[in-house]
Each structure stands twice: as structure tokens, then as C-alpha cells.
């Protein structure tokens, strides 16, 4: 079957089987390996991508079901060689250890900040609870999201 997807702002037509998952289309077919497999059943959030702006799990999304949609992956977050505030903040707060969870966290956090530019700590924690990290105990990740929100406020940046 043919599906049309806009992936990181580039439109493409892909030939897929009905049972093909979005995660495998991304990772195997077009080698965007920033989206990670962690559990395959919706429990870890490592495969989080934005579909039409909303965070979804690529491991439980059929490629055919995403037809016509706009997909954003971690590879699309930096623009013109410039890091997003979240990416910067993750580096600055030491929120990255092994880094395997990082893409998923950044994608979810990006959706959060778009929806709610100044979330409280509780709101951040609530929004990110589906993203699993074994390394950090989440402390520096929460701080990084707070920092990114502050950065955006300072420079008056809205949704991007």
C-alpha cells in the first residue's frame, strides 16, 4: 500500500505493508534511528514521535494508519543546525546519561511546552510519566524541561 507522510517537514510516498509499524518505517526504511525501541508495547515512551503535533508511540502505530499525517522525530527538532531550547537544556542540566531515552523525552517535552509554556513541576512530571529512564532518576530531566520553559519565556518564543 502507498502512504503519504510528511516526515520532519519533508513529504514522501512510501510503499508499506499493512502490518508495518511506524517505528520500523522510520528506523529501518529511512534509517532515522533516533526513535528508539524499548519495549514494543507502549510502556517506555522511547519510540515517542509527534504525529500532527501530538506525542504518540511509533511502536503501536501502523504506518498505514498514519497516512496523510505529519510526523516529527528527534532528527527534526533542531532547525538549520541550531539546537532547540530543550536540547540545549538537556545538555546544560546533565539530563543525558546513556541517552537512549533522550529522544523520547525531548519529543514528549516538546509537545508539553507547546501546549503549556509554563508548566509546574507536577505538570511536567504528569506529562512525562510515560517516558521511562533507568539512568537519571528523572531529576535532571525535570530540571531541563523547566530550564527550557524559562529560556523560551525569556526570549518570548511561542510555539515552534
Amino acid at each position, binding site marked *: 500500500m502507498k502512504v503519504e507522510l510528511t516526515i520532519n517537514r519533508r513529504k514522501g510516498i512510501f510503499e508499506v505493508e499493512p*502490518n508495518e*509499524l511506524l517505528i*520500523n518505517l522510520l528506523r529501518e526504511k529511512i534509517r532515522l534511528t533516533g526513535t528508539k525501541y524499548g519495549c514494543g508495547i*507502549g510502556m517506555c515512551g522511547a519510540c515517542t514521535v509527534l504525529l500532527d503535533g501530538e*506525542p*504518540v*508511540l511509533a511502536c*503501536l502505530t501502523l504506518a*498505514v494508519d498514519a497516512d496523510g499525517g505529519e510526523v516529527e522525530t528527534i532528527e527534526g527538532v533542531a532547525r538549520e543546525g541550531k539546537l532547540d531550547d530543550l536540547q540545549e537544556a538537556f545538555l546544560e542540566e546533565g539530563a543525558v546519561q546513556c541517552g537512549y531515552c533522550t529522544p523520547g523525552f525531548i519529543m514528549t517535552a516538546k509537545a508539553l511546552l507547546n501546549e503549556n509554556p509554563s508548566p509546574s513541576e507536577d505538570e511536567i512530571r504528569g*506529562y512525562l510519566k510515560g517516558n521511562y529512564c533507568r539512568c537519571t532518576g528523572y531529576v535532571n530531566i525535570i530540571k531541563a524541561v523547566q530550564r527550557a520553559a524559562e529560556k523560551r519565556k525569556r526570549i518570548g518564543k511561542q510555539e515552534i
Partner: protein
Amino acid sequence: MNINKVDTHIIPFEFEYHSPESLEETVKLLEKYGSEASILAGGTDLLVNMKKRITEPKHLVNIKKIAELNGIVETPEGVRIGATTKLRSIEKSEMVRERLPVLYEAVRLMGSIQVRNMATIGGNLCNASPAADSAIALLALDAKTDIIGQSGLRSIFLSEFFLGPGKTVLRRGEFLTGLSISSLPEGSGSSFLKVGRTSMDIATINIATFLRLRKGVVENCRIALGAVAPIPLRIFRAEDYLKGKAISKDAVEEAAQIVSEDIKPITDLRATAEYRRDVSKALTRDALTISWERAKGRR
């Protein structure tokens, strides 16, 4: 589970994909393929079951293209929610928050933000998990299900919808189109509580209660619990006990006692039957007390 058949990287078998755009077309497809077909809505349960090889449909019928199945609308009695409405949309809906606060409370605690963005209310109900948070809240609201099939529409109460784990009253060719729910009336209060191992867990046990008071007397009452029986359960005996009684701490305590006697919990990975029985009492007491408090405030 045959461990050599499971590969959660992929869906290891082939199927035919259908994406009908009307109800009639859908009914026809379901009628035609019967048990070989599965309905794809959010996919968060179905795809997991397919990966685990619990179900291997030959036909997948995606109903998300059918516009009339999606959305939350106002009705004279309250609210109608389409079957493919995302949990996240329900959570965000002002109307739901105002008129059906217990549903908002339940949905908000379900899964992760990602799952709530994908999962639909209809899918959640049709999966017929005995622990489904949404089902518990909707039972407390006495929601009605709208079902369509070859012989047309029918409507039944959600309390009659579940038959067992993964089993519902839906017949060949039938599917759920939505839910009709009455707004919480004046003088009523509701609440939803859940105990899980972590903040992202299927309920070890959950409860939703609804109380309507008139001059301190229980005029109407509903109590529903999850993960305590093969289906999401209304505890009618406790409801009947409370109805017509002056609300009091003792009455609440007695209702909680009845609940703990009438549930039929099992021991599983999440908890022992004994634990569920013990906690059901505390949860019932808490939930009724909150509902009572809220009923006082809601005039």
C-alpha cells in the same frame, strides 16, 4: 504464550487493511468477515494483543475515518461521546469536566499522555478489561452504549455491556458507535479513586461512586469497582443499602463493608485477592466520603 511466536519489534503476520468511511460500509465489512476481523481504533490494546499473538485477525477495520464516530457533543440530557473520541480529547473537554467530572478524573489518570493521545473511549470499553478506569467512571454515571449492526441501532446500559474479560454483548457485525451520558444532577457528587503499583499502571483496584442527596438523604447512588471481578462491577447491594438512608459515617462504613463482601477478586501479578478485599473497603469509604462532600457543594 508461545515465546517463539512473539516478536514485539514487529507484527509478525499479515492481514488485510480496511478503512471504511461510513457506518454502513463498516457494518458490511464486519458482517462479511465476522471473527476474522478486528476493529482498529487507537490500537494501544489491539496491537499489543497482536504482537503477543493473542489475536491474529485476517482483516483490520480502521474506523477512525468515520467522522460521526468522533467527538463530544451536547445533548438535552447531557453529553454524547463518539466511540473513536480519543481519551485525551475527553480529558481536555470543558463539557466533560463540568458535567461528568468523574469521567475526567478517571481518564486523566489513564496510561501515559502518548497512550491517551492514541487510545479511544470505544476501544477502551470494547477491550472489556475488568480494570478499565473509563468503564468504572462510566458505570458510576450509568452511561448508555449506542450499538450499530445490520439490524440497525440498539442502545443498552453499560452495566449490561460486559460479559467477561475481553467479552462484550457485541454480536457479529455490530460495533459501538458512542456513549450517551446524563450530566451529574443538582445535589450530587462523584469521585474516582485508583490504586496501582506505580502512577502508570493498570488499576490494582479502582472505584467510582456517585451520590445524590436530598436533605441529607441518599436519593440515588451508584458504586462501581474495577479489577475485583471478571467484569467492571456495580455493587447493587451497597447502592440499595444506601438509597433512602440518611448519609452518615456509619452508613458509609456499612456500604464499604458490603462492597468488600460482594466483590469477587482474584490473586494475580498485581495483588492478592485478600489485598483487594481489604483495600476495597478503604477505597469505598474514601470515594463515598468525597462524593458526599462534593454533593454538599453542588447545588
